[in-house]
């Protein structure tokens, strides 16, 4: 039996883009509803009703709204929407959740890659900051950073922070982007085009134009990893690690991480050079290991 998209000659790329728009709107609405609902139940809604910027003073409500939106819309929604692109029996392989040979070693290379690429990502962040951007974008980014800083510096337990900032986005964003979106694009275009497009949309989805360059590059790298390893758990681990490092660094060295000069300063040149050498070497080893252990992921 063929899937709905095939039966109706519906292009995968269009399904991916429509779902991206629907998920974006659905996430915003649900996250806001949950946060406001919690504040209303606590009798604190009156405080923010007149000035929504005061929402930042209630990190618990914001985190709960954000995580609920991600779990229900991005993860479960994508899982449900995938019914259009595959039949129920194939959904595990469609989302690249089936076990892959040599998973442990693949995961280890992916983790090493995530750590090794960080200086290059910071370099790209610096390059991004040198680009002329409209003042409104910079202002939006500053507001977002101020909110993130307040949330990470707040008196929320580290374990809860890791859950909301590393576990939930690690799973939910991966299910949506490297799960559904990548597969949907792969139906109609060459793998390289699907990888670049998925990674670019992942970077843009974060609405952080002052960091769009590193986010897009990281997005493309993670998408390539998902395609090449054929394993969503590997990229969930990478995403978790990437976000987790930021959370722990923000907790341990808040004055350094949130110092505006930090993002405007280049990492030491020896570290950039090391990263520039280590990344291709790890990619080479990963590729060789995968060649021996696992075939390239086939279309579901």
């Amino acid at each position: 039996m063929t899937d709905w998209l095939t039966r109706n000659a519906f292009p995968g790329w269009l399904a991916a883009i429509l779902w991206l728009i629907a998920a974006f709107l659905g996430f915003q609405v649900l996250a806001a509803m949950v946060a406001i609902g919690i504040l209303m139940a606590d009798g604190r809604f009156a405080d923010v009703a007149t000035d929504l910027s005061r929402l930042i003073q209630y990190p618990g409500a914001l985190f709960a709204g954000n995580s609920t939106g991600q779990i229900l819309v991005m993860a479960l929604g994508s899982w449900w929407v995938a019914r259009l692109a595959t039949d129920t029996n194939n959904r595990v392989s469609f989302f690249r959740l089936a076990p892959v040979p040599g998973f442990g070693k693949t995961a280890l290379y992916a983790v090493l890659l995530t750590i090794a690429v960080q200086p290059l990502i910071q370099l790209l962040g610096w390059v991004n900051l040198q680009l002329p951007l409209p003042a409104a974008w910079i202002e939006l980014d500053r507001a977002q950073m101020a909110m993130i800083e307040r949330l990470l510096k707040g008196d929320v337990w580290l374990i809860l922070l890791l859950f909301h900032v590393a576990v939930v986005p690690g799973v939910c964003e991966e299910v949506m982007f490297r799960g559904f979106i990548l597969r949907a694009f792969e139906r109609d275009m060459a793998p390289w085009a699907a990888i670049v497009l998925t990674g670019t949309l992942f970077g843009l989805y974060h609405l952080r134009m002052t960091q769009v360059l590193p986010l897009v590059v990281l997005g493309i790298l993670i998408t390539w990893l998902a395609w090449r390893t054929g394993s969503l758990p590997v990229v969930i681990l990478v995403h978790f690690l990437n976000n987790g490092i930021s959370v722990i660094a923000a907790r341990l060295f808040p004055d350094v991480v949130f110092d505006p000069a930090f993002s405007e300063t280049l990492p030491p040149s020896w570290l950039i050079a090391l990263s520039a050498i280590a990344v291709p070497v790890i990619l080479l080893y990963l590729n060789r290991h995968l060649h021996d252990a696992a075939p390239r992921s086939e279309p579901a």
Partner: protein
Amino acid sequence: MEPVEKPSYMNDAVRYGALFGIAASVLSLALTYLYLGSEPDGAMFTPMSMVGIVVCLLGAMTGLLTVRTVAKTTGLPMKAGQGAVIGLVAGALFTVFSGVISVVWTQLVDPSLTDRMMEHMIANFEAMANLPAESKEQMIDAVAAEFEKQKTFMGQLAALGLNGLFNVVLNVFTGMIGVAVFAKKEEVL
């Protein structure tokens, strides 16, 4: 995937995109000048309230009628996905035509139009007798901020992008409706 015969739709999409894009622009400009010619009396419902509805309706018709014409001309059975793609292209062309006319008109033909509209809307808010002063102030500030954004080329481009996205998504659905209503059904053996 079984091969599906693809009907040619570009000419029809351009024709309907241009037709409805120009029609939407002419009608919205006419309603705008009608509004500017009236006295601000504090009414909640003004000719300006109609602009969005008119543009939305004409926009939605673009995909629907393009699919109808393609279905009638080719006589081929069509699938929902084909209607969606035809709708998408027609919606994008509608945005291009109506957007270009809007930008050219407000930047070159009548550059003071945006300012006059803003002043007229603010005057209309001020004439609203039943509105509390605080709400009135907030609405005026919001309108002024919105018009300030729209005065710049970048602001117009951003608005055009958002309108385009809305029109494209809308026409994906009207294109699919068009297939369900107008296209020949495939014969089941």
